[in-house]
């Protein structure tokens, strides 16, 4: 038997590139599927949500203004860092979702591949959503996609890592900044992902991660006047309706929850959900 003291990990929130505890000082117990205690996770309050939105807004200018190539490089770097910590994530996903090691490995590998896949989209998305429009007049008419802004994302409840990656990556690759509310029951893989993001050249505030009661954190985010879009992937039908009503006040773009198979080909649906089209009419020379 080892005589080392056990070194337990303190899971914390990820806001503005830093790892704060919840402003409220609260934590909640996270257990595996059999009810065995795994760790304490921070129980974020509405003020943490507010701080996260401020951080996301502050990061938006720099991130959306970075070149698509640069964003792609950074997302690829995240995949590289994940690869190095693969074992840790496999263990966390297996605990969180009650999977065998083989199945958890498949989930983590799929998640890393998904980062790589979305990273490649950064400088290609403009080609499929924008372009030159034929118009009846002496103009060049060009449409190009622009990021929507600050996106509040409710991560899927059942898929703690692959599902999480599948909702974060498509939003940030196009230049949005996000505030993510993790799976309520199994937040640990998401909170560990924050450690990867913090060491991957991703500017602080581009991704902010909050754990806690989904309904409690989502309500102020949905009503927040400085949030531009809402991804309801992790909300049940009742909560989704409530949040969509609150989001209508400043005409947030809302992505409704749909049953999803996260291991299937994701397609471009999520990628294109948080884009606005800018069209420029440019007079042709004489």
């Amino acid at each position, binding site marked *: 038997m080892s005589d080392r003291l056990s070194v337990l990990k303190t899971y914390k929130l990820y806001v503005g590139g830093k790892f704060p505890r919840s402003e409220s000082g609260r934590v909640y117990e996270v257990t595996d599927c059999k009810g065995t205690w795994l760790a304490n996770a921070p129980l974020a309050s509405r003020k943490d949500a507010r701080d996260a939105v401020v951080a996301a*807004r502050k990061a938006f200018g720099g991130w959306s203004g970075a070149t698509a190539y640069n964003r792609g490089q950074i997302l690829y770097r995240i995949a590289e860092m994940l690869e190095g910590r693969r074992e840790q994530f496999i263990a966390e996903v297996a605990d969180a979702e009650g999977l065998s090691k083989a199945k958890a490995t498949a989930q983590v590998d799929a998640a890393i591949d998904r980062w790589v896949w979305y990273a490649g989209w950064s400088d290609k998305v403009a080609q499929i959503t924008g372009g030159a429009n034929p118009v009846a007049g002496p103009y060049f008419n060009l449409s190009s996609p622009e990021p929507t802004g600050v996106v509040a994302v409710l991560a899927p409840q059942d898929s703690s890592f692959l599902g999480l990656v599948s909702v974060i990556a498509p939003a940030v690759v196009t230049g949005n900044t996000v505030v993510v509310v993790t799976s309520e029951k199994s937040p640990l893989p998401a909170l560990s992902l924050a450690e990867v993001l913090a060491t991957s050249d991703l500017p602080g505030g581009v991704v902010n991660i909050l754990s806690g009661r989904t309904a409690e954190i989502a309500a102020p985010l949905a*009503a927040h*006047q*400085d949030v531009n879009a809402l991804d309801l992937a992790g909300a049940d039908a009742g909560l989704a309706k409530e949040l969509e009503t609150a989001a209508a006040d400043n005409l947030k773009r809302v992505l409704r929850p749909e049953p999803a198979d996260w291991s299937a080909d994701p397609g471009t649906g999520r990628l294109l959900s948080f884009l606005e089209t800018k069209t420029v009419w440019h007079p042709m020379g004489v």
Partner: protein
Amino acid sequence: MPNTVPAYGKEAAGRLASMADVTADDGALRRFLHGLPGVDAVGLQARAATLGTRSIKTTAKAYAIDLAISMIDLTTLEGADTPGKVRALCAKGVHPDPTDRTVPKVAAICVYPDMVATAKEALSGSGIHVASVATAFPAGRAALPVKLADTRDAVAAGADEIDMVIDRGAFLCGRYMEVFEEIKAVKEACARPDGSAAHLKVIFETGELETYDNVRRVSWLAMLAGADFIKTSTGKVAVNATPPVTLLMLEAVRDFHAATGVQVGVKPAGGIRTTKDAVKYLVMVNETLGEPWLTADWFRFGASSLLNDLLMQRQKLSTGRYSGPDYVTVD
């Protein structure tokens, strides 16, 4: 305790005369200032930190926000100031939130002397004061006649309040009498031909004074010389208003009031950006000086971005939703 008279009133001069022995000559003034008790730095910081932990919520918070808005000296002191920008700021001062007319107006608009006439015209009839910085702001490095001409210009252009900077160089080398005489001279230059006078705020630039003891000394020095308000900073150096320095100045005002009965105002300036900070200062004022000072006549915030944060918090309280920078003006 002698009964209270305002620092800008006629009787204040008589009260100051009762302290004439300590300002009679350089030696007496030095002995007096150096005889002031030393500041317990750790105690001061702990006291300021404790007062910052009060939780002010709901109706009390709503009251504090409106009070803070009404105490703001909305400031623009940039080389790039244009008449248009000053007029826009004045319009914002009159109606800080155009969508909600229940928001109080600010206390004053603070500009450079050459913009006073523009601001005065834009604010006519609104009851908002025009404050002008003067005396070679922000460095204060000019000859006395230049500083006095600067002040007279601003007063002639219609400034209601003058924010002067002290000569920190003279103060730090111990030429207290020189600083004292300079403040007195500027106070005289604030007089208008009709016998009234612009109110005088004296800026210490506490970030350059190095020690708490110096802040206490300069506070007494300025109040003895007739300052109507004492102000922490110009907002142009690295360290601006901090809670401990402001608390120390509030305590100096309290002690001066206890000794002479003269009521002097306090204005922290620079670095106060959030509602939370502003409320901390209001708590300090209430705990140190009490209610008589909790009005725009005796306490001011020198700020520009603070107003937007107060407005966003006000919108949050009235609608229940967090507001964002899209819903306040870009200054």
